[in-house]
């Protein structure tokens, strides 16, 4: 009980500091645990139990989130970018490992550990910026899910490597078999179980956990690491609406164990020597330097424009909680030393902490300057007394139709090549580029326009045009009251979309919204 109390205190401290600094919690939980280990107050046996249980839930949760439906239309892009990043980083990681003098097997572990980005950290970041549902946000989510799955599938490879190619192949085959079992469960077994136990929260929770342990047992029986079983158990429960039900019941249980996991992990570490410390930093640097250009490259090949591509690259420049999983697995099997594990843990700590500083608009713009993209050409003749429309996608369509009916001149600014070519074909003048780029705005003739209409999603993106507009009225879309205020303060005229929706709802409501399962609309 004492050990548990201490672990919880360390976790609370870690959370407190991360909240105070407004940074991801995981690094600070680990640091909290490290403090514990330095104080020497927690027995190893208890820590191991906490670690194992936490690990199980961490991986189970990751499997639970693996719903390709969330990625929607960005699936192909996500696979392309995800695989690209994975392969390049894995190769770099492997090379780094060999360079540092690790054995081949240890280098394999390092390669796996560096190749994935952190689902927990990145999703949280995207949620805060409210960009999770934008095209690039979905792509990033897809990348993260893909990489989680890849790591789980490849862990047996790293583990069985020393036993020869046959063992590895058999391992992969067995993993595929377990995946099949998971899929079968998802389609038939789980819906049946849920129907039986759904009404009672307690029984449902236990059934879900029983299911998890069953899968882990099966995984153990066929000689695979436990984490593989836990992941596939989660996957079997990842379909809608089961995953929502599970998440609801399991949320607090998993939060508890996951927090304990990271803290216990920290308590397992010891203060690194200077050499280990430098190696960890080096690995972190590798990840942070290689990832942005690689991701940006693949993202643009997949059809994204430069800015979201670069931003995605920054978003993904860290190693994952799964890197810790890989490292732990390696250490348990005796394939990597505790020092190597500390290197991985350090790299994860550093990259996770630095991600909020990297993934900023400011840094993205800075890097954009280095981008060898095609510059838009000046419009000839230069537009005058026209309407500038920022964002020509579906958001601006209705407006465009009306304006072209009135035969009024419009210049559309957008960075999506598909939209640009469509508009050009319709005979509308366009400037291809980023709406936050002053050069682009100048070419669109903002200062000479009759008005500027912005349909872009984020109010911050309207900042530059507001600064540049001078006397030209700028009408900007805003969802929030706070965003509207922000725009108004800078001289723009916000159009509150939430108000529009509210008005329509109230009209529907007053007209008599349906009674309980009576008439539909």
């Amino acid at each position, binding site marked *: *009980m004492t050990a*548990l*109390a201490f672990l*919880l205190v360390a*976790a*609370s401290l870690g*959370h407190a500091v991360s*909240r105070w600094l407004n940074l991801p919690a995981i690094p600070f939980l680990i640091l909290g645990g490290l403090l514990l280990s330095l104080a020497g107050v927690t027995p190893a046996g*208890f820590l191991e139990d906490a670690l194992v*249980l936490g690990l199980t839930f961490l991986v189970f949760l990751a499997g639970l989130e693996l719903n390709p439906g*969330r990625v929607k239309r960005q699936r192909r892009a996500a696979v392309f970018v995800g695989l690209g990043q994975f392969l390049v980083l894995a190769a770099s990681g492997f090379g780094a490992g060999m360079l540092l003098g690790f054995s081949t097997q240890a280098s394999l572990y390092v390669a796996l550990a560096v190749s994935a980005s952190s689902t927990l950290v990145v999703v949280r970041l995207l949620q805060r910026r409210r960009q999770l549902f934008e095209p690039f946000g979905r792509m990033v989510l897809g990348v993260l899910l893909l990489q989680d799955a890849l790591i789980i599938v490849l862990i047996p490879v790293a583990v069985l490597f020393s036993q020869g190619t046959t063992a590895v192949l058999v391992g992969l085959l067995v993993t595929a078999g377990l995946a099949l079992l998971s899929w079968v469960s998802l389609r038939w077994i789980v819906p049946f179980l849920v129907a*039986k136990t759904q009404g*009672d*929260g307690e*029984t449902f*929770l*236990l059934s879900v956990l*029983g*299911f998890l*342990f*069953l899968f*882990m047992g099966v995984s153990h029986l066929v000689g695979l690491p436990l984490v593989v079983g836990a992941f596939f158990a989660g996957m079997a429960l990842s379909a*809608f609406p089961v995953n*929502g039900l599970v*998440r*609801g019941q*399991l*949320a*607090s*249980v998993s*939060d*508890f164990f996951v*927090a304990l996991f990271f803290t216990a992990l920290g308590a397992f570490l010891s203060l690194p020597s200077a050499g280990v410390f430098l190696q960890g930093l080096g690995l972190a640097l590798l990840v942070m330097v290689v990832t942005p250009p690689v991701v940006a490259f693949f993202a643009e090949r997949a059809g994204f424009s430069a800015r979201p591509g670069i931003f995605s690259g920054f978003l993904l420049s860290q190693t994952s909680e799964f890197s810790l999983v890989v490292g*732990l697995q390696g250490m348990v099997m005796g394939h990597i030393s505790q020092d190597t594990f500390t290197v991985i843990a350090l790299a994860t700590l550093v990259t996770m902490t630095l991600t909020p500083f990297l993934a900023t608009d400011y840094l993205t713009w800075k890097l954009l300057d280095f981008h060898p993209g095609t510059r838009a050409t000046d419009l000839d003749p230069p537009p005058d007394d026209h309407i500038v429309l920022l964002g020509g996608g579906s958001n*601006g369509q*209705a*407006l465009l139709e009306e*304006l072209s009916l*009135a035969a*009024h001149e419009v210049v559309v600014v957008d960075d999506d090549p598909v939209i640009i070519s469509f508009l050009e074909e319709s005979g509308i003048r366009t400037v291809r580029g980023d709406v936050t780029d002053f050069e682009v705005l100048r070419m669109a003739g903002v200062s000479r326009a*009759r008005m500027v*209409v912005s*349909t872009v999603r984020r109010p911050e993106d309207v900042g530059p045009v507001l600064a540049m507009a001078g006397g030209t*009225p700028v*009408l900007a879309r805003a*969802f*929030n009251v706070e965003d509207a205020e922000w725009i108004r303060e800078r001289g723009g005229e916000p*159009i509150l*979309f*939430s108000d*529009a*929706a*509210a008005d329509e*709802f109230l009209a*529907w*409501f007053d007209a008599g919204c*349906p009674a*309980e*399962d009576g008439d*539909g609309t």
Partner: protein
Amino acid sequence: MSDATFLRELGFIILAAAIFSVAARPARIPSLVAYIFAGLFLGPVTGFLTVSEAVHLASEVGIALLLFLVGLELSLEKIKDVGKVAVAAGLGQVVFTAAGGFVLSMALSFSPMESLFIATALTFSSTVVVVKLLDQKGDLDALYGRIAVGIFLVQDLVVIVVLTVLAGLGRQEAQGAVGVGANLALAFGGMALLLALAAAASRWVLPRLLAWVAHSPEILFTWSLTWCFLFVLGAEKMQLSLEIGAFLAGISLAQLPYNHEMRRRVHPLMNFFIAVFFVSLGIQMEFSAAREYWLPGLILSLFVLVGNPFIFMWIIARAGFGERTSFRTSVTVAQISEFSFIFAAMGMGAGLIQDSILSLIGIVGLVTIAVSAYMILYADPLYEYCRRWGLLKMFRARKGDEAEEPERASLSGHVIIVGMNSLGRRLARELTERGETVLAVDSDPRKLADLPCPTLLGNAEHASVLDEAGLDQARLLVSALHIEEANNILTHRARARGIPVSVHAFEVSHVPELLALGANHLLVARDLGAERLLEAVQKHGAFQP
């Protein structure tokens, strides 16, 4: 981690618990009885598993969380007004059962020493079993629930006294009365200290501390758990039971506005660990000598099952409570405690009794816990039955105690709005102005400030939150959330219960999904905003030459 024994044990325990509880549902067997049977299967029947240190710790965590929940549910005021009857009933029952048990055991031809142990083992009722069942019924806050909790806390104190005396007697250097007295003083002094700490923290420290992290549910959760286990640790250090420590920790947090949310989050965690507790209880039951002692076991069980409620009913009715309340409180004490096994094991370890007595107590334990679980869960039909047969006339209790039930204020025909962003807030305000009853739900307490309608703090994705929001009685569910998965789940849940739902479709790609789930109306801010935009553009003279 090298052999993951703990994981293996836990896995089997949870799997057995799940299988047995799913199988038990059609037969309406209480879940905790199912868990005990799962434990019996894993332990005495197959000899497959024994309880390790780690599993034991998990069980203790379950007990702590359960009592923490109880504390969160109640508050010092609520406890105070049942204090007197709790003390009277608690102490009265101890005296009666101990005396009666002793006499009965002697009559059944047990030796005086054995009778003493049996009597003590029979005396205490199980806090864990009763509180778990009360929580399941949702009656912790009812009058009879509060009285029951008060009684068990009083008995806990008596247990502490007994344990302290035992420990003092059992020591190598026989301490004598002074030593034992000193230990007792330490224990009670410690409790006073913890109580003071809880009260002080509740008034001055906790509100501000927790307000800082209130908008982040995970941190709030971690901190409340840390608080709980720090108290548990403190209680253990002061020779008090972990139940009391956890309970005090819960009480100190009961005043805060987030206690509902905290309770909802702690609940599943508690369910998990408590299941481990009951299964491990089953595993540890000892039935080697069961065959020869089945008749005395049955007789003693009957004594507990009928005798304890009897004396209780008498005391509580005397105290002026209504007949129904008295009855419901009385059936909660019809079992012996898990502590009885510990006590008997201690006696066996000290060579004072044989292991056959342990089996006897095991039988009584199993029978009384199982039967009393039924009695508690089905207390109302049982009451009607007893009343009809005139069994309760002898207690001469006051009739008509409906006023003693808590007011279950529930909304009906209301509109639930989830997501207090600008859209949600505007809707909440406008609908309230139109005279509708609105319940605003959000997981961020800051977003629930300054609203003209009742609010509920919680994550609407969780079924328990929707239940508390009274989804089944609502007229309409509106979600203004900007989160796809949440909107999907909400739509699905509402339509499954036949409640109309209007949901925010903030992305074109999301619309078909929501319609397929049966959404009655979509808040499509984008399209409508575009119309607004158009109007504004026209206003600015876009269409003039």
